[in-house]
């Protein structure tokens, strides 16, 4: 399909569904059914099987016509991680059941991966899932769960076989967050707010039809999710000066009284690095135009985190006295944000929130291991636990 043919299809869609008179949700559902949600997805699942680059054609035409947006920041985990994983590993029934409400935002998703005892070493996770007829009974504790208090569903990894080495005994599930055994508790963080949660799972029952992939294959499924997460965090398509660098450049322009040669030198250096990171992301996306992301996303995320941290730190110094004041938004008041915006709120928040960028979605240290081992082919870290059954590991 040419871009012109695609444009024609969008125009036909708009003719049949006038944004001015159509209900927002109805319009989004119709857009999904017309294959105009994510055109790079297969037909029947909100797409048309086109190259990723063609999405811009649709987005621009619909935005120009005043059609509503899906507000992707409210369902980042769903769109960036759950959806591509369901698409890659899900059954036809699962794709039909979950993708449409996920895309329209009717069902928000969260990620039940990390545990108090399984952070970088995610495969050591201890949450147990035990089969009971057509269901699985899940018990355990998850942590760092963004949006758990808003989510309708979760992607969940749990241990289904403790008698085999840790990577082999994991299974991937789609968990209903309204199950009475799911207890979500806010986890307050250094910004003062509780964007994350602890999630306690007590006898949560998940039908086997909500298992994603084979029993014991959960690690491979989770790896695909994590590669998508790193691309989602580090490699989003963006114009120049988007993200943190744009915010800080604007702060600089707005404060001529605070400009010094030393701050200027640092700002321009970081501006160049941010622009290079943007181009590197563009180049990576061109490479990955087809297929699943591999370890390359790890490198992008390391750069993204470093730049976000350095830029947001510089911004506070540009602000000087104002940088000392943490009062411009809601101060330290405990709040439960309904979406995460790394570049939102005030400079103090941005500085503190950016500290998470080198931890969430794989620490920068683990990502450097991935680049060294899987991109450069250097020897893997020594792993004493690789061939030991999970139940025999030191805990």
């Amino acid at each position, binding site marked *: 399909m040419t871009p012109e043919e695609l444009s024609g299809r969008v125009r036909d869609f708009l003719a049949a569904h006038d944004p001015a008179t159509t209900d927002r949700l109805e319009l989004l559902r119709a857009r999904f059914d017309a294959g105009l949600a994510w055109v790079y997805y297969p037909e029947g699942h909100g797409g048309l099987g086109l190259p990723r*680059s063609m999405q811009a054609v649709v987005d621009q035409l619909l935005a120009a016509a005043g059609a509503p947006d899906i507000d992707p920041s409210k369902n980042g985990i769903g769109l960036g991680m759950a959806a591509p994983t369901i698409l890659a590993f899900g059954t036809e029934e699962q794709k039909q059941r979950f993708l449409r409400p996920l895309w329209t935002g009717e069902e928000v998703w969260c990620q039940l991966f990390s545990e108090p005892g399984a952070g970088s070493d995610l495969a050591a996770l201890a949450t147990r899932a035990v089969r009971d007829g057509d269901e699985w009974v899940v018990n355990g504790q998850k942590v760092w769960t963004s949006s758990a208090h808003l989510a309708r569903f979760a992607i969940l990894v749990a241990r289904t076989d403790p008698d085999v080495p840790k990577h082999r005994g994991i299974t991937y599930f789609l968990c209903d967050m309204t199950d009475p055994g799911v207890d979500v508790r806010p986890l307050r963080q250094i910004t003062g707010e509780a964007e994350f949660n602890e999630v306690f799972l007590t006898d949560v029952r998940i039908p086997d039809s909500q298992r994603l992939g084979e029993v014991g294959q959960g690690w491979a499924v989770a790896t695909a999710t994590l590669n998508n997460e790193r691309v989602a965090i580090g490699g989003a398509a963006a*114009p*120049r*000066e988007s993200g943190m660098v744009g915010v800080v*450049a604007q702060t*600089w*322009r707005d404060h*001529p009284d605070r*400009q*010094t*040669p030393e701050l*200027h*030198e640092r*700002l*321009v*250096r970081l*501006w*160049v*690095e941010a*622009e*290079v*990171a943007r*181009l*590197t992301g*563009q*180049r990576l996306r*061109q*490479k990955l135009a087809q297929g699943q992301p591999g370890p390359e996303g790890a*490198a992008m995320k*390391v*750069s993204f985190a470093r730049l976000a941290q350095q830029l947001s730190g510089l911004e506070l110094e540009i602000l000087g006295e104002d940088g000392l004041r943490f009062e411009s938004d809601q101060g330290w008041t405990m709040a439960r944000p309904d979406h995460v915006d790394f570049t939102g709120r005030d400079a103090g928040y941005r500085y503190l929130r950016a500290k998470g960028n080198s931890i969430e979605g794989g620490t920068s*240290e683990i*990502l*450097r*291991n991935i*680049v*060294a*081992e899987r*991109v*450069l*082919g*250097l*020897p*893997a*870290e*020594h792993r004493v636990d690789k061939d030991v059954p999970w139940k025999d590991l030191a805990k």
Partner: protein
Amino acid sequence: MTDLDLLYTEVEDDLRSTVRELLADRCDPAAVTAMYDDDRSVVDRLWKAMAADLGLAGLLVPEDRGGAGASAREAAVVLEELGRFAAPVPFLTSAVMATTALLDTDGPLLGEVASGERTAALAVPLATSPRSDLPSVPVTDGRLVGTITSVAGALEADVLLVPGRDERGVNLYAVPTADVTVTPVVSLDMTRQLADLTFEVAVGEPVLTEAEPTIRNALDTAAALLPSEQVGIAQWCLATTVGYLKERKQFGRVVGGYQALKHRLADLAITVDSATAAARYAAATLAAGDDDVLVATGVAQSYCGDAAVAAAEETIQLHGGIGMTWEHPAHLYLKRAKADQIALGTSGEHRARIADLVDLPAPH
């Protein structure tokens, strides 16, 4: 700022293979190292093969003017390979810089340079950034009298394009090298050896009058493409160091397995990959005549120069003692990278230029 292709086309990959094959055959590191001991014999045969036999001298020249009619993207690929081999040929100085200036002239010289029959150099110091004051030689009574120092490509050139200044402005004169006192400089980077030029020569008509925009455009073009050479240097450094650290054993194990070194190499890989994107974008904007070319050039110059130096410095350190020896080629790359970082303006000069272009001017 359209979504330009930052990868390589099939044609570009083919060109790369051809150039790499030639360099692997005729640009032996030992022969390049010998240039530091005054044996420059590698240069002529290598440049003849590249310029005339492969037709690379005319890469940027339209077909109707005797060239190959290729674009800056292909020239960038050639430069990547030249960087990878620290190759001592005057491609950047003759086929890019002087040729770009000659594209604004009439007359036979462009065709002669494009065919590889003659080799030209623009007589400006290698460290000249595209927006700094342009050095020029005064012209009085039809005579150029003066000096220009630290010029790259002059030793290999048989014709020099000299900015001469008279009461009307700056003109460009084509002066046979034989008429000029060319004093070789013992250079930090002998693979692009510099020369001081002393003029005391009668000149006829200039090949171009009001030549300042042409000279600056030639410098800008070279500045947009030098980053690709720096990427070639950096890629060689990374690949060579990773290869060595996979072999080298200490304390009974391969040193590339130590996390302290793995993380340094991972950071270097990220830097080199980033530099590749920046250099590719500069070449792509130049080739496409994109409005963003000046910003792209400044970004690539300021990033890739530092990246290549960082890669070469890591190569020396991570090779340990062997990296410090004359025998190991690492020093060829360190010297080339450091000289390239200063060539056509330091990264700081390019950052200052970008700052103005993107509305982040320096405070008063």
